[in-house]
């Protein structure tokens, strides 16, 4: 059994003035050290889920656990929680506070009361790892969207959390910037941080994640490794989610040819397979 970083137990939440429940008995586990993708439509509860993880919203029923312990909503508890669990919002404009990447990355560290020398080092390291060193002193409104997103990520990464939650990180990016951002996220994962990404791009989720969670109208409908989740075609269709193109094409190959083989994870793997089998 894997260790869990975060767990939601039957969490219920209704926004004031909203008609339906945003979370309607959400039970969900995030395994430590993995790359988890949270799938679901807009309104399935992805953002609400994340806001519960950092204690901004408090469950109206059920509970949220961090490292096996129920969250402590006291002032100190929340402060510790938010140091351990970093949240990167969808729109970086809203997350960036100061005027240059260097200042902004240092902001979160400074408010944690760390000494200036450590702040400098950690900021430098975070900027470097996210490939922002050359841009470090450029005013933020001169950066491209992809660079802003990486800056927002750097700001969270610099505070050295155990988990980083990313709300639709790739939205609005062109393919090149998206690849760069995904690369940065992988870099961060490699330092031992658990990464959770909400997305509605099935292809990205399929090729990127180790663990997949499917939400629908405030509940978790499925969790598991990618191949297993996407093999459940019925559920995906019922929820109106697309099957990744690769899986879709793979499944349309005759069963005899697929037998005993793992479903390819990327176009590259699929191409190798096709090239080897049909020459």
């Amino acid at each position: 059994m894997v260790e869990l970083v975060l767990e939601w137990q039957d969490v219920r939440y209704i926004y004031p003035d909203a008609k339906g429940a945003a979370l309607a008995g959400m039970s969900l586990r995030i395994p430590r050290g993995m790359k988890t993708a949270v799938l679901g439509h807009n309104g399935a509860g992805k953002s609400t889920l994340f806001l519960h993880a950092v204690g901004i919203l408090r469950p109206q029923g059920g509970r949220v656990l961090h490292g096996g312990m129920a969250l402590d909503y006291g002032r100190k508890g929340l402060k510790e929680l938010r140091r351990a669990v970093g949240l990167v919002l969808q729109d970086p404009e809203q997350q960036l506070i100061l005027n240059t990447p260097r200042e902004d990355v240092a902001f979160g560290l400074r408010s944690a009361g760390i000494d200036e020398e450590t702040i400098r080092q950690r900021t430098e390291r975070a900027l470097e790892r996210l490939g922002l060193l050359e841009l470090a002193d450029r005013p933020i409104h001169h950066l491209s969207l992809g660079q802003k997103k990486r800056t927002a990520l750097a700001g969270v990464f610099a505070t050295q959390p155990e988990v980083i939650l990313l709300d639709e990180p790739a939205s609005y990016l062109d393919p090149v910037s998206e690849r760069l951002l995904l690369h940065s996220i992988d870099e961060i994962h490699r330092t031992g941080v658990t990464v959770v990404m909400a997305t509605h791009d099935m292809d990205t989720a399929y090729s990127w994640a180790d663990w997949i969670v499917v939400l629908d109208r405030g509940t978790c409908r499925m969790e598991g490794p990618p191949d297993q989740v996407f093999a459940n075609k019925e559920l995906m269709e019922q929820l109106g989610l697309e099957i990744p193109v690769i899986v879709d094409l793979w499944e349309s190959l005759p069963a005899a040819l697929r037998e005993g083989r793992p479903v390819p994870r990327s176009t590259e793997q699929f191409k190798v397979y096709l090239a080897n089998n049909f020459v």
Partner: protein
Amino acid sequence: MLRRIDSLSYQGKLSSCSPLWKSGFAAVMFVMAYIGHPPVQLAVWIWLVLWTVGYGGVPWKPYASLMAASLLFYILSLPALLIEVAPGPAQGMVLLGWGTHVLLVTPEAAERAEELLLRVGVCLSCFLFLILTTPFTGLLKVMEKLRLPAVVIELTMIMYRFLFLLGDTAASMMLARRLRGGGRGFRAAVADTAALAGRLFAKTMERYRGAIVGYTVRGYEGTIRMGPDASLPMPVRYRVEGWVGTALLAVAELCIRLLN
């Protein structure tokens, strides 16, 4: 919070009914609230709660909390309304005295506070009836009928369009600041707020530049023309109740005045 009244005003059962009728009715009730004697005022109060919560279908919980929140101003003013400093002995309930001076509540002041509470309550119920059953676009039509200058109506329209956008932006910025742990101490807090306001201003300017392009593309040449009023007429049943009720209230008020 910003969306609360707005959402309620669009969801109610009277939302699509003529805004002109509703504001006319509210205006008459405002007059009643001011000229009426306490029994008539009380009747107006109860009647309008019925109109808003009963006929309008506004949930009572937000209704009550809005009523209570608005009364906070009254409560805050109470000490000033009630407590008097008199240089010598005076009629009233003495709270404190030193030398010849006394701190007291005079009967006149107490009576005035009572009357005021009643009037404020009745007026609030008229006010809440209007804003909770009439969507803002309806109020714009009323403003047009009142012959407010076109430029004011246009500015109001543009503002309404961008209020929520900027409001959402500000809300997420504040969320982010909470997540990232703002600075400590008064000075740092003010500095953070200023940075936030500045960023919001930058966003506003960006919206401005974008909107200029967007409006031009749509053929905007300096004026926004409003369409004709497309709201439904008030159902007959309610119109009848409105007229009959108002007549009864007027008669009751007249009787009270004659009897005194």
